C-alpha cells in the first residue's frame, strides 16, 4: 500500500477553535483519517520536534498552521514546519491576520505584563515578580519561550502557500478543501485565499437591504433589531460589508452584527480601511445646504462619537496584518 500523505495541524498562539472546527467535521473526520496520515495533534508535533526536524524537507504534504506568532516557540515551529511541509497553510484568522490575540499590538509587552502580573484585583506579588525566559531554581535552570514585543501573522515570519480565513473556519469550508485535495482537483495559484467566498458577507446574508443611510449608530444592546432588515441600515455596526463571505452569515441570522472574522473580501488589503470607506459613503449627515464646514464636521463627529473604539471595532481580527499594524512605542 502506498504511503499516505502526511497531514499536520499545529497551533501557535490561538484558542483551539480551529481544531474543534476540524473535529466538527464529525463523521467526515473518518474520511480525512482514511485519506491522510493524520498528524492531528499539536502536541504530537511538538513532542517529536526532533523527529520532525529529522524528517527530509518537504515530507509533510500539508500543514494547517493555526494561531498567531506571539512567542519565540511559535516562531521557531513556524520555521521548522515551513521547511518540512510541501504546503504550509495559514489556517484561520490568527494565522492569516492576527485575530483577537493581535489586539495586544495596541499595548506594549511591558503594559501587558503589568496588567497580568502586577496590577489586577487578585494579584499577590509584593516582590513585583514577572516571568522571565530563564530562571534559576534550587534544582537547576528552568526556561520558557520569549514573549515577543508584537504579535505577528504567519505570513510575516515565513512564506505561506494558502490562506484559509475564519475564526474559526467553518467546518463545511474545511471539508470542501479536503475533498478537493483528495480528489486531485487543480489547486488555485499559490498565495490564494481558499475556503472562503470571493465577495462579502452581505452577499450571502438573507436580510433585506435597501438604500443604506445611517442617521445614528446603536450599540447592540440598545435596540432590538427588526428581524428581516439589514442590521447596518438599522444603525448596528455590522462588518459584513467589509468582510469576506463563505461563513453563511450565521451572526446576522442570530440578530447580531458581523464582527468581521473572515477578514477582508477578495482584492481588499485592509479590512478596517474598507469599512471606514464604506461608512464614509453611507453616513447621513443631513442637509448640508447653508451649513459651514465646521457645522458639517461637528455633525460627522457626533455620529462617530457613538463608536468609542475604532481599532477594536474595525480591526478586531486583523490588526497585525493591517496597514496600521498596531501602536508603536516611541
Amino acid at each position, binding site marked *: 500500500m502506498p504511503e499516505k500523505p502526511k497531514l499536520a495541524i499545529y497551533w501557535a498562539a490561538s484558542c483551539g477553535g480551529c481544531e474543534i472546527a476540524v473535529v466538527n467535521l464529525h463523521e467526515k473526520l473518518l474520511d480525512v483519517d482514511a485519506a491522510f496520515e493524520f498528524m492531528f495533534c499539536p502536541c504530537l508535533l511538538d513532542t517529536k520536534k526532533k523527529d520532525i526536524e529529522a524528517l527530509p524537507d518537504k515530507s509533510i504534504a500539508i500543514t494547517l498552521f493555526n494561531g498567531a506568532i506571539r512567542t519565540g516557540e511559535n516562531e521557531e515551529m513556524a520555521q521548522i514546519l515551513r521547511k518540512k511541509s510541501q504546503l504550509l497553510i495559514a489556517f484561520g484568522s490568527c494565522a492569516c491576520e492576527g485575530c483577537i490575540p493581535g489586539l495586544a499590538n495596541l499595548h506594549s509587552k511591558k503594559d501587558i505584563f503589568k496588567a497580568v502580573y502586577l496590577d489586577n484585583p487578585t494579584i499577590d506579588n509584593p516582590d513585583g*515578580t514577572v516571568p522571565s525566559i530563564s530562571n534559576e531554581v534550587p534544582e537547576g535552570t528552568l526556561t520558557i519561550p520569549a514573549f515577543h514585543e508584537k504579535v505577528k501573522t504567519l505570513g510575516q515570519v515565513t512564506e505561506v502557500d494558502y490562506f484559509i480565513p475564519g475564526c474559526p473556519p467553518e467546518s463545511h469550508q474545511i471539508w470542501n478543501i479536503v475533498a478537493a485535495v483528495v480528489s486531485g482537483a487543480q489547486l488555485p495559484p499559490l498565495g490564494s485565499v481558499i475556503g472562503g467566498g470571493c465577495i462579502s458577507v452581505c452577499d450571502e446574508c438573507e436580510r433585506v437591504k435597501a438604500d443604506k443611510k445611517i442617521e445614528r449608530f446603536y450599540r447592540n444592546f440598545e435596540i432590538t433589531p427588526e428581524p428581516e432588515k439589514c442590521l447596518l441600515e438599522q444603525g448596528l455596526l455590522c462588518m459584513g460589508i467589509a468582510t469576506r463571505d463563505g461563513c453563511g452569515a450565521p451572526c446576522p441570522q442570530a440578530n447580531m452584527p458581523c464582527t468581521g472574522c473572515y477578514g477582508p473580501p477578495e482584492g481588499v488589503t485592509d479590512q478596517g480601511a474598507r469599512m471606514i470607506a464604506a461608512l464614509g459613503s453611507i453616513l447621513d449627515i443631513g442637509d448640508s445646504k447653508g451649513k459651514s464646514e465646521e457645522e458639517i464636521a461637528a455633525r460627522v463627529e457626533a455620529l462617530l462619537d457613538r463608536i468609542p473604539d475604532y481599532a477594536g471595532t474595525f480591526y478586531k481580527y486583523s490588526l497585525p496584518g493591517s496597514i496600521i499594524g498596531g501602536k508603536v512605542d516611541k
Partner: protein
Amino acid sequence: MNRISIDPITRLEGHGKIDIFLNEEGDVANAYFQVPELRGFERFCVGRQAEEMPVITNRICGVCPEAHHMAATKALDALFAADPPPAAKKLRELFYSAFYVTDHTTHFYALGGPDFIMGPDAPPGERNILGVIRKVGLDIGRQVIECRARNHHVIKTVGGRSIHPVAGLPGGWSRPITESERDEIVGIAQKNIDFALFTLQVFEDLVLKNQAYVDLITADTYTHKTYYMGLVDGQNRVNFYDGTVRVVGPDGDERVRYPAKDYASHIAERVEPWTYLKYPYLKDVGWKGFVDGPESGVYAASPLSRLNVSDCMATPRAQEQYELFYETLGSGKVNGRYKPVHYRLATHWARLVELLYAAERMLELANDPEITSPDLRTVPGAVIGCGIGCVEAPRGTLTHHYEADERGVLTRVNMIVGTTNNYAPMTMSIKKAAQQIITKGKVVEEGMLNRIEMAFRLYDPCLSCATHAAVGRMPLSVNIRDLSGEIIRTVSRG
C-alpha cells in the same frame, strides 16, 4: 542533579512542560509544571466596548468558548445592571447544558476514558479511542460522534454559531427559538439522557466491577486533601449556570460561601517567575506552597470539586448516581451530607454524574413553556462601573471581572479561568505521581509515562478533547539526564 523533562505535555490553554528533578539518591526532589504561553487578554481587552466581551473572550478558548461567552454575558448583566427576563436565563442555561453534554462526552471517550477503560497497563497501542471502541463495541464511536454533532447543532441553533457563539447581550439573549426548534431540542435532550445512562453503565461494567481499577482510583498516588470550590444553588445543589460560590475544606465543612462579585476578597493569585500562568489560592488561608491539608490555601475546582461542595444534585437520576458515587467510594454522611471524596481519579466518574445532570436539565428546560418566549431582552441603562460574572466551566469555576467608564468602554479586566484554578493541584498531582513511581533512580518505564499523564489528565486540562480525538493518547517523551545534563536515556511513546 539528574533531571527528567516532559516537554511539552498536553494542553493547558495551549502549551505545557514538566521538569522533574532527582536528588543524589535518585528520588524525586521536585517537579515543576510550566506553562510557556501568555496572550494577555487582561490588558488588550482594556479600551474595548464592554458588550464585545462575549465575542472577544470566546477566543480565550475554542474548546469551551461557551463558558467564556456565558461568564462574559453575565458580567455584562452586572456591569449594565440589567437583569435578563426569565426566558433569557432559561435559554442561556439550555444552551449551556448542551455544551456540557458535548464537552464531558468528548473528555470521557476521547481523553480520560482510554486510560481508564483500558487501564494504565494496557499496551499503548490499545490505550486510545480505537481501543475503547474495540473493547466496548463499534457502536460507541458512532454514538460519540453523533452526540457531539447533535449538541453542536443545538449550540448553533440557540447561540448563533457552533464555535464562538454570538447571542449573549447585557440583559439578554439575541435569538429566540421557534416551537419546531424546541421540539427538535427535546428529542436531542432525550437522546442525551439515554447516552449518559449508557455511559455510566459502561463505567460501572468496565471500571467499578474491576477491583484493580477501584484500587487504582483509591490509591494514595492520586489522593489530595485540598479545599474544593464550586457554584451551588439556593439548596446547595450543583449548578453550572448560576448560584453562589461555595468552598469546603478537606473535612467537608463549609469554609466560605460568597456571591461572584466578592471573588477578589477570597481568591488571590501567586506569580512564579518560571511560568506564564498564575497560581490562584484561597486568600484567607494563604499560600503555603504545593501542599495538601487545611493549612494550605490550595483548592481544586473540577467535577469532583463541584460534587464535594454540594449537598445533592437537582435532577432525580443524577441524584441516584451521586449517592452511588459517595457510597461506593466509602464516604459516609455527616450532618446530612457526604464527606468529600479526595481520590482525584474519581473526577472521571464525577464528570459522568454531571453529564447525566446536564442531559436531564436540558430536557427540563427544553420542555419549559417559556423557553420559546421572544421576550429575551432587558434594555440596559447606564453602566454602573463594575460587573463580575461567574459560571462553572467544565474545568472549574470561571470568573470575569470588568470595569468600565460611563461610555461602556473597559478600563480594567481580570479573569480567573477554569483550568487555572487547578494549576496548583495539577502541579501537586504530577509531583506526587512522580515521587511514587521514580524511587532510588528506578524508573517504571511505560507505566511511568502513563501514570504521570493520568495525574493531570483527570483535571481535563483545556484542549485535551480536540487534540486527542484522532490520536487517542498523549505522546510523551521523557529525557533522563545525568549530572552534566547529557541525556542518558529516553523513554518515549508517540
